[in-house]
């Protein structure tokens, strides 16, 4: 079947379009929205959708641009003829006309039926379902936009019968599984699923599982029964063992009691022997002691004799040494005495010099006191003069009025008030002055000479000569009298005050005050000088100095007496100082000499003492030795008196040694007897036997307890028979095991059947799918190279997703990239079409609507080789694309759609 042309009218975007198709390769190019997919869909519907289809399907075909019902006409070639199917999709009034060129024409349903037959599809009849189903027709050949990368195997399933029929032919007499095969296989598969999980383990509560559980339970019960039985056996064993222990221990008890008795008897004997041994030990000890004492005394006598000789030898050289030491002591004593004398002499000389020095010093002191007395006497004179001057000044002050600062201040205040009163009076008073007068002028009776003036504060008679008597009255009226009175009072007060002070006036008072201040200052200065010269104690100091001089003079007299005559007194202090210095120097030298003598005396004293100590020690040693010798002689005499002479002592010593040996022999014999009796271990033995007896009793008690416990366990009420329970449980395990094996074998048989059926199915399917896989591989190799293979599997009659094998590595469909998926799916579709084309005169059209959107440009170029192979193998490849340039290498007829038709 080959499409020749597609014509559409009033179909969505298309008003009237006819596309002529190449028998093998056509590229329908056009931009988006140019109606490529619409054209492909229209062709599909012309072939498969009933013309009378209405509803939504019909509406989707109606053009909103162009009036009139959608119409599609497809010319195609099949069965050796050219047909034209023309359909008008106008719902119930739709029409279908199939025409064989140069031949018959079919209308409507006949046309639809004939068309279905030509296309070898099922006539789907009418109705809603038919429209839906028709859309699925030939979907393996119509690759719609967006579906190119989808798994193509469902399409193979949809064509399974045709495909398998063709594959069966090419597969070489292969037979498909029958219905019975399927039924039986399903039955075992179901049986397997009932018995086993997907992991192949027995399902819970399945027969094998229940058999396993039964076996487990039976084993548990057997173990319980065994446990019970073992407990009984254990109890019986314990009972017997405990009985044996009791018997053994009773036997042990007898033996131990016997041993104990024997040990006790031995112990008794050992006690007696020990007592005897103690007595003999005491005897031996005493004998030894007597011998020791004797031997010690004998040794002591010998020692004393030796010591006596030694002491005597010591005493002889002692006398000579005594003499030597005495001489030495005497020598040191003389030397010491001589030094003492020398010291005495030197001391006297020093003393005389010291007395002279003290005399000189007393002279010097007397000079000093004299000098000091003179200095104080001079000061006393000055003090007396100052005293006199102060008295003089005091007298002058006493002669002056007692104008103190306060009195002056008060007087000045009175004076100021007087002046102010006078001023106030003068303010109201009248002045009168005599410029020139030839006549005497008197004012108030008092002459006023030319050039003089007078203030008149009261009515005053002024006479000029006699020529005139004038009464002058000052102004002020009554106030004048007040002022005059106040002025009078002030004046009187001032005068009184001046009188009280003894001054004439304020000025006089001021002068007096100044004079007084002057005299007071002088007096203060003199007084300070007087004080500074120590006027307060000048008399005492004078008296002291006098007394000191007297004392110094007395001291001189005393010292002179000590020194005696012949020592000239110095003339003055300087001479005294010179003498003193000279004497001090001499005295220092004498004292040094004296100290040297003293050191020698001390040294001599030390040597003397040493010599005396040596002498004393030596003498003491001699005395001690002599004393010791005496003691030794006494003790020696005493011992010999007590113990006899040497011969007697020898005899006695031998007797004592013999006695000791005898005592020791007896003791040794007794000890040997004790040793033979093993007396030392008898107590331990007895203790051991007692312990063993206790242990045996304990063991018997313990064993009897255990026997009682075991006996209790062994005592039954007879309700059950553990032996029977054990036997039954054992048999039950055997039975359960047998059942379990049987069930397991049956289950394994089911598993085997299920697996074998699955395996055989796969094998069968492989035989069918091999030609398909090889055909696909042929296409894939155009793209992926000669190593490329396709793996196609049938599972329970359905195709599984194809697998791409490249270079030995298998890639499942889902793990491929988008581009590779598109290419594998296209190869699958091409191979399918190639195989199915055998039912359609060796050709089928394949419409790829934008089917390689995910392929890169390089891959797009190589896949054109694949598409070309399909065309070469007789298929009709129709590509719809908006990138026609990408398929330029295909050498296809290119039809361009420009967009909305006008």
């Amino acid at each position, binding site marked *: 079947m080959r499409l020749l042309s597609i014509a559409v009218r009033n179909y969505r975007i298309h008003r009237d379009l006819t596309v002529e198709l190449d028998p093998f390769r056509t590229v329908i190019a056009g931009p988006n929205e140019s109606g490529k997919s619409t054209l492909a869909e229209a062709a599909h519907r012309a072939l498969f959708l009933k013309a009378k289809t209405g509803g939504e399907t019909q509406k989707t075909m109606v053009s909103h641009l162009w009036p009139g019902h959608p119409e599609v006409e497809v010319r195609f070639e099949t069965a050796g003829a050219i047909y034209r199917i023309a359909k008008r999709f106008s719902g119930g009034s739709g029409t279908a006309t199939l025409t064989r060129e140069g031949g018959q024409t079919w209308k409507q349903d006949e046309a639809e039926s004939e068309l279905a037959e030509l296309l070898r599809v099922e006539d789907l009849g009418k109705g809603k379902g038919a429209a839906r189903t028709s859309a699925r027709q030939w979907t393996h050949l119509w690759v719609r936009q967006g579906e190119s990368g989808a798994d193509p195997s469902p399409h193979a399933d949809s064509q399974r019968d045709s495909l398998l029929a063709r594959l069966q032919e090419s597969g070489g007499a292969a037979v498909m599984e029958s219905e019975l095969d399927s039924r*039986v296989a399903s039955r075992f598969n179901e049986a397997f699923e009932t018995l086993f999980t997907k992991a192949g383990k027995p399902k819970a509560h399945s027969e094998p599982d229940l058999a396993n559980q039964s076996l487990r339970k039976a084993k548990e019960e057997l173990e319980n029964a065994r446990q019970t039985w073992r407990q*009984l056996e254990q109890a*019986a064993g314990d009972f*017997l063992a405990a009985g044996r222990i009791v018997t053994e221990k009773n036997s042990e008890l007898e033996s131990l009691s016997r041993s104990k008795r024997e040990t006790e008897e031995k112990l008794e004997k050992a006690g007696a022997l020990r007592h005897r041994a103690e007595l003999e030990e005491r005897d031996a000890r005493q004998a030894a002691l007597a011998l020791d004492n004797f031997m010690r005394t004998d040794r002591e006598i010998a020692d004393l004799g030796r010591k006596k000789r030694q002491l005597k030898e010591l005493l002889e050289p002692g006398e000579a040494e005594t003499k030597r030491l005495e001489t030495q002591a005497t020598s040191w004593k003389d030397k010491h005495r001589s030094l003492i004398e020398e010291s005495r002499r030197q001391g006297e000389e020093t003393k005389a010099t010291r007395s002279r020095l003290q005399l000189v010093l007393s002279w010097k002191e007397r000079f000093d006191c004299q000098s000091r007395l003179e200095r104080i006497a001079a000061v006393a004179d000055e003090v007396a003069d100052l005293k006199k001057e102060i008295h003089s000044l005091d007298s002058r002050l006493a002669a002056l009025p007692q104008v103190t600062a306060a009195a002056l201040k008060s007087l000045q205040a009175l004076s100021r008030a007087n002046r102010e009163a006078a001023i106030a009076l003068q303010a109201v008073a009248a002045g009168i002055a005599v410029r020139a007068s030839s006549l005497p002028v008197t004012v108030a009776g008092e002459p006023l000479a030319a050039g003089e003036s007078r203030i008149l504060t009261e009515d005053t008679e002024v006479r000029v000569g006699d020529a005139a008597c004038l009464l002058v009255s000052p102004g002020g009226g009554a106030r004048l009298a007040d002022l005059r009175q106040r002025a009078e009072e002030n004046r009187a007060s001032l005068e009184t005050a001046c009188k009280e002070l003894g001054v004439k006036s304020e000025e006089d008072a001021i002068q007096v005050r100044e004079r007084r201040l002057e005299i007071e200052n002088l007096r203060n200065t003199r007084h300070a000088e007087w004080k500074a010269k120590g006027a307060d104690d000048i008399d005492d100091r004078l008296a002291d100095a006098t007394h000191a001089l007297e004392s110094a003079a007395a001291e001189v007299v005393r010292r002179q007496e000590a020194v005696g005559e012949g020592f000239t007194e110095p003339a003055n202090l300087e001479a005294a100082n010179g003498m003193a210095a000279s004497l001090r120097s001499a005295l220092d030298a004498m004292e040094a000499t004296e100290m040297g003598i003293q050191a020698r005396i001390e040294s001599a004293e030390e040597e003397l003492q040493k010599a005396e100590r040596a002498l004393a020690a030596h003498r003491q040693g001699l005395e001690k030795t002599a004393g010791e010798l005496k003691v030794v002689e006494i003790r020696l005499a005493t011992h010999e008196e007590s113990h006899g002479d040497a011969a007697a002592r020898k005899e006695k010593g031998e007797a004592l040694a013999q006695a000791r040996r005898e005592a020791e022999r007896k003791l040794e014999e007794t000890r040997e007897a004790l040793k033979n009796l093993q007396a030392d271990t008898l107590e331990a033995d007895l203790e051991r036997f007692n312990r063993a007896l206790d242990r045996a009793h304990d063991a018997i008690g313990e064993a009897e307890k255990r026997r009682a416990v075991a006996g209790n366990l062994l005592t039954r009420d007879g309700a059950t028979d553990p*032996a*029977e329970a054990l036997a039954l449980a054992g048999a039950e395990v055997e039975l359960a095991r047998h059942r379990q094996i049987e069930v397991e*074998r*049956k289950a394994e048989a089911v598993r085997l059947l299920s697996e074998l059926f699955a395996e055989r199915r796969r094998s069968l399917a492989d035989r069918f799918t091999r030609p398909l896989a090889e055909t696909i591989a042929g296409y894939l190799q155009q793209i992926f190279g000669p190593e490329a293979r396709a793996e196609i599997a049938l599972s329970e009659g359905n195709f599984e997703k194809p697998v791409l094998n490249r270079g030995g590595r298998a890639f499942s469909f889902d793990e491929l990239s988008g581009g590779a998926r598109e290419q594998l799916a296209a190869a699958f579709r091409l191979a399918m079409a190639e195989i199915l084309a055998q039912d359609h005169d060796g050709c089928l059209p394949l419409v790829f609507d934008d089917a390689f959107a995910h392929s890169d440009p390089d891959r797009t170029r190589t896949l054109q080789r694949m598409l070309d192979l399909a065309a070469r193998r007789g298929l009709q490849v129709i590509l719809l694309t908006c990138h026609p340039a990408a398929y330029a290498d295909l050498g296809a007829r290119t039809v361009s759609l420009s967009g909305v038709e006008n």
Partner: protein
Amino acid sequence: MATVFLHTADWQLGKPFARVSDPEKRAVLRQERLHAIQRIGTVAKEHEAAFILVAGDLFDSPTICKSTVSQACSAIGQMEIPVLAIPGNHDHGGPGCLWDQDFFRQEQQTLAPNLRILTTPEPLELDCAALFPCPLLRRHESADPTAWLRQFDESALAASVGTDNPRIVLAHGSVLDFDGSGDIDGEEESSNVPNLIDIDRLPAALFDYVALGDWHGTREIHPHCWYSGAPEPDRFPRGAGNDPGNVLVVAVDRCAPPTVQKIPTARLGWHGREFEFDGDEDVPVLEEKLSQVTGNRAGRDLLRLSLRGSLGIEATTRLETLLDAWDSRLLRLDLHNETRIAPNPEEIEALTRRTGDPLISAVAGDLVQRAAGDGEEAIVARIALRRLHAAVSVAG
């Protein structure tokens, strides 16, 4: 006049028959052992036995339950003559033994005052015989239980039990001359057991009869030394020489050879059969043979059946149907089925040459191949083949 007594042993009352999975059938087997006591009593009466000697294993275990004890004592009590028993290895007289339990003593005193358990190895003088019991005081006695008899000489025995009465030794264990081929005790135990009796070391002239227990088949060791065997068999036969299901009527006199008469007392049939299939047509042959074993009886027989050979799938199904029927008819069908399912050529063809069903044919072919071996895989494959055959038969 000779003393007549019954020598029996190995009653093993209360034996659980644990391998019999049906509890009712188990109960029948156990009950039958009690019924055997009645039959022994009848024999004793018929032969006017003075007493009955049970040479050990009166009970099956030392911990037997009270109800069995009660039933046993009741049955023994009805015998009305003295029944003297020694503990055997199953009901030994060790610590916690049945004989020491209060409930046993009580039932014995109440129901079976004629029963006496001889737990001490010491001579016992009866009116007409002197007994020398050799009780087992533990399950496995390493020492010869009859060793104590070696201490005696004639004068000692004469002083002890006199010289008139026959002297009878009562012991339980295996004698030295056993060839080990037989089943001494119990179904599963080997002959390599302790409790060995060195019968040759027994001063033969001193004793007139040795009554032995432990060996479940009746067997003469010497003319004066016998195993009585169990009165009721309790296992499948293991050879022609094994003759269980009897008691011995013994007439013995001092210093005279005893006369021993074997009296059958068994009621249940314990059978063993082997059969090898030579073809599918042998299934009816087996059916016929089995019918000959039990006749029309049901519930009285036990059968150990060993099957070998091979059968086709359908014949196997027929065999299983047959065996199911026999399993219900018998007290126990101890089946040792080693029959191999080997589809016959028709069956193989019917499965593997199904041109229209390629899957089934191929799988069947695989299974036929796998089923050829002897291992576990082959067994599973044979089962699978049967299931496939059944599935095809049903679905086809």
